């Protein structure tokens, strides 16, 4: 339930994405402008994917992270500090598995085509 009216933030984003996409495909802009529009489109798509699944991904990784560090509250800052302080060995399998999952989830939002 939301107190805000439709269009939802996702629907608003989709309208802007469609607009920018149409501008790129039209013949009305020079190549350098199209290149800038392409960056705008990429950024909007990142935001759209994060709006759609970001919370769910964040919750999942926070839970896995807590298990990894053996503490109730997890943060990226905490994990970085533990690696720097060598509380984890650089060959620790659980750490490597967690960080691999983390990067997989991040790349799905930032650039899903990048993954092999």
């Amino acid at each position, binding site marked *: 339930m939301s107190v805000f009216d439709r269009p939802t933030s996702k629907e608003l984003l989709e309208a802007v994405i469609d607009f920018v996409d149409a501008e790129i495909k039209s013949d009305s802009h020079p190549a350098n402008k199209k290149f*800038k529009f392409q*960056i*705008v489109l*990429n*950024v909007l798509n*990142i935001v759209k994917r994060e709006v759609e699944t970001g919370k769910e991904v964040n919750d999942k990784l926070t839970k896995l992270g807590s298990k990894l560090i053996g503490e109730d509250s997890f943060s*990226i*800052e905490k*994990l*970085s*500090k533990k*690696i*720097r302080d*060598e509380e984890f060995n*650089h060959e620790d399998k659980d*750490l*490597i*598995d967690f*960080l*691999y999952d*983390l*990067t*997989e989830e*991040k*790349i799905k*939002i*930032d*650039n899903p085509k*990048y*993954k*092999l």
Partner: protein
Amino acid sequence: MSVFQEFLENSLQQKIKQLIPLTGGASADINRIILANEDELIVRRTLSQEKSVMAIPKILEAKIQKVVKKNGAPVPAIIFEFSEGKEIGEGYVMEAIPGETIPRKILRDEKFAAAREKLPFEIGRSLAKIHQTQLDDLKALDQVTFSDSLEKLFQVYLSFNQPQPVFDLAFKWLEAQKLTEYGDVLVHGDFRFGNFIISEENLESIIDWELAHIGNPMEDLGWLCVRSWRFGNVEKRVGGLGDIKDLIAGYESNSDIKIDESQLDIWQLYGSLRWGVICMMQTFAHLSGMVNSLEKAAIGRRVSETEFDLMNMIKHKNFL
């Protein structure tokens, strides 16, 4: 006419028809000079009086190109150097080598098909030549060891105060590696597509020497193999173009150094980490308010690409 154009005309003793700005290195203002007789030259200069954190002075860049060229490696000939006031700056004029530098065109256009076949070997062969440059005339260059580079990169990373656990793991992983010493060589420092001028026949020239230093030869080879320069051709480790075996064969055909692939893996991993930190550097230039740039804001979300590459290398030993 601008003061700069007037200065160039007086120095060259020729009229200039047009000065065309080119995009270039982080600390260089680059222009193509079209002379009245249609001949072309390139001028690279820096206007800032402040010493760049990363780039070497332009006068030193010119000196390296002269020394490297004398040794037979493909670089543009230097016409003249200058060191003037703030309106003109410090820089040099060099010959304009015809050819293409844009990686996507080199990788995809049909007219480069024949050149593509031999490029990994030829690039390796030319790099070996560069690495054999006598260092006596280049004493002004910094000597940088692997641990110096790693420490400097770590300090830059820390300065953003944005923890990236994957980077922290990569720093620890790299600290634990045993590096082979091959003896000091001239390292180009940004040896990748974008800085190669390619004709339909072959590699014509290697440009953009602003990150040159003295160090380990594997740094240039590893940087060339970083996945970020493959432009979609992921399975081709050498710049999205060819196999590592051809690069090594080209290098070894012209050098006494025998390349151990596991050393190249380490330097490739270092290269991905370095590119990740450079992406952060760019995005924090925007976030700090120093510049307001869509491109710089967007590049912050490319850090995850380098993290993905790092974890593939660390977890799966996958360097493709």
